């Protein structure tokens, strides 16, 4: 009888029977990367739905609910989904790390896999801690069906864990030249992201200003590596993303989207250019909803001659296949223009998916992070000027000089908007600078007074309140994990 009841599955693999070869371990790692390209992360939520562009753009639809207009609740699907996907990525990384020593393979290959998995896990925790504050930390694969109530770890300890893992990973992974492209986690990516992690830690809400030194140090490591420099053309950076070309000097780490779902079964396409892009229903140009319009405030931040303005903010709209210039006073009519489907080279263009990559870390960001940390530590030193002016020179904008520390900071703040708008960095910048609430309110009032037909966007900005500094812990999690507590105001 015992033998009769002893059946074996033939349809799936079990973890104990897997991870025996380098290839199988690599398959595990691939699945950790896969999360970056999920709709809940960079394909959609972080790029168009979670309000990451803050005051620089607005959701150009008059009737809508959700985080993009700050009407979300703790049961919001987008907030829920992002939380879920981040922990899914963490669990996939935990699985790889738990089985890292199983296969027989070279140490260098093992170290690379281990480093990339370790870093990606830390990066997902970084996304969690910067958006939710204190979060549960799970570092081992979950094997039991019960007993999975985990309390939140204070943000400071989460940051400590993140930098510990990232630093360890930094010594294990390849250099970007060895990798040869920007889609993998490399030493440069880890160093640059460490600078970002320390900057966030130095700012609100933890405000541990001692971390500016670490931020400066890690940004400097990227700058001194000799591996990076700015692309000479600002627009070319984004045309490269549309055309699946790499410039590993400027673009340090990007999310890879691939294909158009035609002729194959892969679903690795994204929505870059499709959700946030220049609106058109023309499938030859490339269908785009144009969900995000730039605000007049962003437009006015650019001086005449700054090449970035008419790239980041579309100066035209499509009418059929024609580009029709916006009138000079139509400052709220303009779609965010950074992600342009007309440059895609993969034909035919799929209407609802794109192969465009999305940058997580560009060298100009590293330079600006260095300038910011340097200014915070030592004031506007020549090194700080050198860094920020590299970015300005490329943009054909006048170089900065003779600024006080606060003035330098104000200039840097605006420079980050000009350079990095619509790259999912503005909202966390405002939060760490402690300016999110005030900025959003001012923006709301400005829109109310001058946006005309787009005045509906006012409401979204005025919906913002102190609770929006963090996302709510999903109601589902609160119900299932009794050790959780909710963020203030939710």
């Amino acid at each position, binding site marked *: 009888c015992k033998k009769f009841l002893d*059946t074996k599955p033939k*349809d799936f693999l079990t973890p104990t029977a897997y991870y025996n070869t380098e290839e199988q371990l690599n398959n595990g790692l691939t699945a950790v990367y896969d999360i970056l*390209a999920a709709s809940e992360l960079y394909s959609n939520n972080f790029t168009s739905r979670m309000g990451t562009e803050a005051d620089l753009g607005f959701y150009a639809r008059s009737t809508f609910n959700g985080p993009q207009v700050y009407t979300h609740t703790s049961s919001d699907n987008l907030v829920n989904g992002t939380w879920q996907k981040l922990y899914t990525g963490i669990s996939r990384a935990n699985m790889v790390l738990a089985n890292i020593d199983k296969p027989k393979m070279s140490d260098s290959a093992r170290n690379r896999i281990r480093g990339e998995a370790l870093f990606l896990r830390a990066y997902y925790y970084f996304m969690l801690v910067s958006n939710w504050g204190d979060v549960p930390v799970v570092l081992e694969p*979950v094997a039991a069906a019960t007993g999975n109530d985990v309390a939140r770890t204070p943000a400071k300890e989460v940051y400590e864990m993140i930098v510990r893992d990232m630093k360890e990973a930094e010594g294990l992974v390849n250099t970007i030249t060895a990798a040869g492209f920007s889609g993998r986690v490399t030493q440069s990516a880890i160093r640059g992201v460490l600078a970002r992690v320390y900057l966030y830690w130095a700012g609100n809400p933890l405000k541990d200003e001692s971390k500016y030194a670490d931020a400066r140090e890690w940004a400097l490591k990227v700058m001194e590596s000799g591996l990076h420099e700015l692309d000479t053309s600002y627009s070319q950076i984004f045309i490269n993303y549309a055309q699946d070309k790499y410039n590993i000097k400027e673009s340090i780490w990007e999310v890879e989207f691939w294909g158009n779902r035609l002729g194959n079964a892969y679903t690795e396409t994204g929505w870059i250019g499709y959700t946030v892009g220049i609106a058109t229903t023309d499938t030859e140009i490339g269908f785009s909803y144009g969900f995000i319009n730039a605000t007049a405030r962003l437009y006015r931040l650019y001086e005449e001659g700054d090449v970035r303005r008419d790239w980041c903010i579309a100066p035209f709209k499509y009418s059929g296949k024609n580009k029709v210039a916006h009138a000079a006073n139509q400052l709220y009519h303009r779609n965010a223009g950074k992600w342009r489907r007309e440059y895609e080279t993969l034909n035919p263009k799929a209407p609802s998916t794109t192969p465009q990559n999305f940058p997580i870390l560009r060298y100009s960001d590293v330079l600006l992070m260095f300038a910011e940390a340097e200014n915070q530590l030592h004031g506007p030193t020549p090194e700080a000027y050198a860094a920020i002016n590299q970015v300005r020179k490329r943009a054909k904008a006048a170089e900065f000089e003779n600024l006080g520390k606060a003035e330098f900071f104000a200039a840097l703040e605006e420079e980050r908007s000009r350079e990095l708008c619509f790259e999912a960095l503005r909202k966390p910048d405002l939060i760490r600078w402690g300016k999110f609430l005030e900025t959003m309110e001012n923006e709301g009032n400005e829109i109310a007074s001058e946006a005309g037909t787009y005045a509906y966007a006012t409401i979204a900005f005025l919906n913002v309140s102190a609770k929006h500094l963090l996302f709510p812990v999903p109601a589902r999690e609160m119900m299932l994990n009794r050790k959780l507590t909710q963020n203030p105001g939710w």
Partner: protein
Amino acid sequence: QNPSPVKGRVTAAGSGLALPGVSVKIDGSGRGATTDTSGRFSIAAKPGETLVFSYIGFERLSFVLKDQSNLNILLKESSRGIDEVVVIGYGAVAKKDLTGSVGSVNMEDLSKAPVLSFDEALAGRLAGVQVSSGEGQPGSQMNIVIRGANSLTQSNAPLYVIDGFPMEDPESASINPDDIASIDVLKDASATAIYGARGANGVIVITTKKGKPGKPVVTYSGSYGIQKVLKTIPMMNPYEFVKYQYDRNPDVATESYLQNGKTLESYKNEPGYNWQDYIFRTAPITNHNLSLRGGNAQTQYSLSGSVSNQEGIIIQSGFKRYQGRISIDQVVTPKVKTGVTINYSNTTQTGASPSANNNQSTNYLLFSVWGYRPVSGAGIDLSEDLFDPDINDAADHRINPVISTQNELRLRGIKNFTANAYVDYNITKDLLLKITGGVNSQTGRSDAFFNSMTHKGTPLFPTNVQGINGSVSYDELSTWVNENTLSYRKTFNKVHKLDVVAGMTMQAGKRSRYGFAAQQVPNEELELSGLDEGIPYQAYASDGNYTLASFLGRVNYGFRSKYLFTASLRADGSSKFAPENQWSYFPSAAFAWRMSGENFMKGLRTVSDAKLRISYGVTGNNRVGDFDYMPSLQLPIGASYSFNNATPSKGVIPGTIGNRDLKWESTEQIDIGYDLGLFNNRIEFSADVYRKTTRDLLLQANVPYTTGFETVFKNIGSVRNQGLELTLSTVNIDRKNFTWSSNFNISFNQTKVLALAEGEEALLTPMTWDSGYKGALYIARLRQSTSLFYGYIWDGLYKYEDFIETAPGQYVLRKDVPANTDTRDMIKPGHNKFRDINGDGVANTSDMTVIGRGLPIHTGGFSNNFSYKGLSLNVFFQWSYGNDIMNANRLMFEENVGNRNNLNQYKSYVNRWSPENPDSDIPVSRGQTMYGLYSSRVIEDGSYLRLKTLSLQYSLPKRWLKPAKISSIGLSVAAQNLWTWTSYSGMDPEVSVRHSALSSGFDYSAYPRARTLTFGVKASF
């Protein structure tokens, strides 16, 4: 006087066939005999003694001997009464000796319904058996739930035992209803515990017709009928449609419709299209059955075959069946009997389900049928092209429903083969060894092909990236079972009746699925055979297997048929659990007191039978995946990632956590029943109350996302079902030429959730019918029922008095009037108003509450049979009371929540709110953001009473037939779903698409039910 030999012959009343094997006993003497092959017997008896004749399937006859020495005994076939035999698990008992709650379907009534599958006619036949069909597509399975759903996330389908062969998910359509001799439903634990681990959802025992000793009887029955859709929905005509477009957007409507001198008035003369007229059709249904049954005392045989063809009332849909059955029983020696039954069926279902799971509401068939424009502004004939040139919204997938449906190939064919064999060995007169074995093999094939003229294949749809595409996949399911039982039956001292069964069984099953799909198929005219020229994009391959081993035992003890005891125990071992949790034990006990056997009741002449039954027992449910206890890894294509622009690398991901602690779900049930027969059982009444408590629910329980998983199978949670079942059968009039009998049953069931996953107060269930509606529609909250609708209470519309007019035409919501979920500035007169329950001035997620119940309060049936000479009339009503339906169609067609251009609406939307019609409670034509929210506005009372079957039969007088050597000819006319009384506004209140225990009563683009009228003939030779 000494007993002297008495001879005689026993024949069947009516047919006159000799009956072999009839037991003949002299009451109170112990003397007995059995009839031989020609029905003859000889027994010693003396005048004054009572001879008792009994034979399974016939009424028991008592005969007081006078001074005859040669008797001619006619036995009547039994149809009802306490001596009727009821089939229970691993045996049969006389109804009077029954201790459990078992319902027997009146097959004579059921057979009058013009349907091709027995489950289609089962609703309302038995108390406690709830049959709800999702929709009316021919060949679709019904949802049968016995005494309420125990399981929340797992199957609640009963176990089927067909000719002794237990099956968890039979193809009910593979059995010809004409072959069914009896259907018995085991309901309480005393009856079901013998099926242990699989008995908790109740057991349906089906016994098919066997040959009977006697001359060969050839029977032919055939019917032809027509079916029509029960009801269509009135749609806007061209004038109303254009007016509605003008209300939505005057500029756009003027540009589209009011050019070249056309005015709104000119549309009054346009005939326009009602697409329902083109998609629904009058469809024929035909059915032919031919059987040959007969045999002698040693050999009985039955051969039967049927051909059935049902075209669907939606074009291109239908169901076909070819089926044959053979059964042979052979007495080998006086102690050994053996037999075999073989059934083969080949069924084909064509056409897609219009409600099949689909994430985008505009993809559904009926969305296009109702939503496609009745008229175009430019004078284009919309019936000619696949596309409407004026619909160019990338998110609106409306298409000419007629052309698309005509070009679609959808086929689901199933070949089902079942063979059972048995050997009975009478070790002694009282001890019987029964060995049975059976195999079931089912091969299903699903084909789909979408050419360029279909919804899914047209390359013109911007989102249709697959182009012309198709797929073929095979499902194979094979099961074998072996059962060995030993039964001992003996009566001691004439008063102690003992019936013991013990046995062991083994069962194993395998299921696999293989297939592939291809896209960008270049030569569409080749259809499926051209798939190899396309680009493969999906392959299906899955495999599963399970085994089950069991030991069972049951003791029935009866004292003078007055005090009856039953005790049973089954031990089941299932491979679906980890070795340490494989075995479980399921006991039951029952006691019945047949009061009518007591002296004090014998005096009551009106009471012919009275019995009190009490039973208690535990049964189980193991309906989880074959290996759900194990952790798994998967390599789905979606977990790939591209590095350096290379073809994506595959990613491996954890699939399930696995749970080694997984074990059976167990259901404890107590049942108290009372059976009463009055006036020689002319009135039979039966009542049962029960309480079922299911514990250690096999629940696909939610786990925190921090685990990296969404759900895991756990034994957690508890559900209680309790209820009352009443059945009343009466013979109202019994005259020589006219009889009227009726059967009424009603059942009440109440479901209550007692516990859920750790810390969970409620289980929310969304309905995935549209990408905009991702929130929960159902809630199962602790201490409440399952399948409760969840959403906002609709409080009508905002009216002018809710606003302050700040400037002419500018309305600002008054401060004391709560906002719906919209921002206050957006709210205008004519918008939906939701109740602000907590009074915080705004209706938001904290004001969501229970807004309806998906489950009925009571269901039942009422059947009447009238017969006058050769005419007989059957009138069968069936109802459901107290359940609500979410009519999601109205969201799209009586509000247009998606705010889509040129989308036609129901005629009821003509009466929408407008400044000229400010009293209306139907929302304004555009301008609100209710997309994605459920409110009680579209929840409707789903109660109905339906004249389900009306059948009139006429048997030709025998004297006309005799010269032609025909034994009987019957002519019949039957109607199904003839009339329905309901306040539900949709096409059919008998609807529940994507039905589950947690989500009952949802209606969106359901296949409507047909009204059927058939003419039939039945002849025996």
